[in-house]
């Protein structure tokens, strides 16, 4: 008597995620062979065994970079998707919590005062987390509005505060030496990625990604009304704080490694929803995979397309906006009326 629907959508989402993962694997392998050595374009895979220098370029330069790009994209994508659920707002990413601006300030301070790559990582990571704590601390002191509104308001204030501090540092920086360094770092890029910085950033980013993917369904649940989520057994305040912390740690780690790479956390979840054909919890793993794919491709193009390297943040924004616009315009129906 109870006729049930066929189970297509769930299987469909799994299939599409597998397809995206396959595309990601192929793109990562291709990115290893893509660059400007020995000639611009793709390298013949056979030269890995004939040409010792080619082998060293791939192992010591391209491999850490591709891994860095994978983690960067996956962490930004997954955290963007998770934060959009937590804030019940599809126009949010980690930048709204002041995380990116905090990291920028830490990095700019190190570039101004001097310090090695690990010091820079530490300062960027530390200030990113500080910015998050400031956002949450301020939000808890605001006496009006819902939890989400308070977090957004305080996050925006903290973000602007650190932007102002960065501007101050840039204003005081040596225009011939540290200013260009700071400016370049702020545009984001993986050119400085080595096994050393990766060994610090990767574990944090990886743990964050795994945790966000494991928490995906609970995260989607938090996008429901607070009273509803609570009656479904969730503890919205605690769970929200946990997810914010996990997402921010991942973003802080990759931002400390690669600088501010804008646009990925905001837009990739939307691409994931389009690609998966739904808004449910698979958006989080979908965004991790598509974010990684997007950044790997953008980074390969950044370093291989021209003789000078383009900043990654510029490439992601240029390609991302055009691709996104094309997708939006190409999709004839955007509200499904079944």
């Amino acid at each position, binding site marked *: 008597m109870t006729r049930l629907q066929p189970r297509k*959508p769930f299987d469909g989402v799994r299939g599409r995620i597998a397809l995206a993962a396959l595309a990601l694997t192929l793109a990562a392998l291709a990115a290893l062979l893509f660059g400007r050595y020995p000639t611009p374009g793709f390298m013949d895979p056979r030269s890995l065994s004939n040409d010792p220098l080619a082998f060293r370029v791939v192992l010591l330069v391209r491999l850490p970079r591709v891994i860095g790009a994978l983690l960067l994209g996956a962490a930004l994508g997954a955290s963007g998707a998770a934060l959009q659920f937590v804030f019940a707002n599809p126009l949010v990413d980690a930048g709204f919590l002041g995380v990116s601006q905090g990291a920028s300030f830490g990095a700019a301070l190190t570039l101004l005062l001097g310090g090695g790559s690990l010091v820079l990582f530490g300062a960027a990571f530390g200030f990113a987390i500080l910015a998050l704590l400031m956002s949450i601390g301020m939000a808890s002191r605001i006496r009006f509005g819902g939890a989400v509104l308070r977090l957004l308001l305080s996050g925006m204030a903290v973000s602007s505060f650190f932007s102002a501090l960065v501007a101050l540092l840039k204003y005081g920086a040596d225009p011939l030496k540290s200013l260009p360094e700071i400016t370049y770092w702020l545009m984001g890029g993986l050119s400085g990625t080595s096994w050393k910085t990766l060994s610090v950033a990767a574990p944090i980013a990886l743990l964050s990604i795994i945790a966000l993917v494991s928490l995906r369904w609970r995260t989607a649940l938090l996008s429901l009304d607070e009273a509803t989520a609570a009656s479904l*057994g969730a503890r919205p305040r605690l769970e929200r704080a946990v997810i914010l912390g996990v997402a921010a740690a991942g973003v802080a780690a990759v931002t400390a490694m690669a600088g501010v790479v804008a646009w990925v956390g905001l837009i990739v979840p939307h691409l994931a929803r389009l690609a998966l054909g739904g808004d*449910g919890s698979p958006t989080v793993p979908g965004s991790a995979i598509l974010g990684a794919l997007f950044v790997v491709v953008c980074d390969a193009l950044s370093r291989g397309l021209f003789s000078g390297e383009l900043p990654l943040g510029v490439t992601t924004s240029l390609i991302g906006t055009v691709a996104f616009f094309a997708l939006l315009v190409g999709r004839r129906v955007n509200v499904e009326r079944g």
Partner: protein
Amino acid sequence: MEFVDVSYRYKGEQEDALLGFSLKLLPGCAMALLGSNGSGKSTVLGLGAGWLHASSGKVECAGPVAFLPQTERLAFSFTCLEYVSFGRAPHLPYLAVPSSADRDKARTALVEVGMGTKSNRRITALSGGELQLVRIARALAQEAAYVLLDEPSDMLDPAHVATIGQAIRRLADSGAGVLFSTHDLAFALACADETAMMRSGRLGAVGPAAATLTCEALGELYGTPFGLRSLPVPLHGIVAGPPARPRI
């Protein structure tokens, strides 16, 4: 579920929203909560759901509670099935996602409210009435001992009101205690076993629906005269308005 001498005051307010409120809701009983706007109905439901905490007195509850607030923000277009599957959350370990058994329960709940054919439809593409049915399906999938609904028939067409009334009846008949607030007196009369009347944060008359919903009691409750008027079928019921002149 029992409210024992419960008072509640919202933060920053001068007056109690609820004062010395005592009420008992038994399993298998559907109870309608009536009262004018601001009389404290939503506060009672929030306290019962554990969403608000009593300033004094206590709310005792023997079993899990499902709560449907009057409105819900819909930031994302989940499918009906995904949305109803959220109802399974209390039954799942923390990091688990719904199993196929959970999804089957969600599908069954959708079938029960007549939305079985729309399980893959996006919730943002539903009409107000369909959305309300899907939310009730979520409460069904939750399999809670008590279900609290804040104005479930609000702004719906008569057909959807009837379907929701049936769903409430089915919940109560299956042994759940159902408490819902409403301004729709005909709806209350049609699906509630009992009615409780509230005025300015205090509980008034409680009793079987047919016996409690008298013109005198309603007139006092809402502060406007009520009368019985014969109306063409199917508008029989109690309607607000001045007493009608006798028909000749």
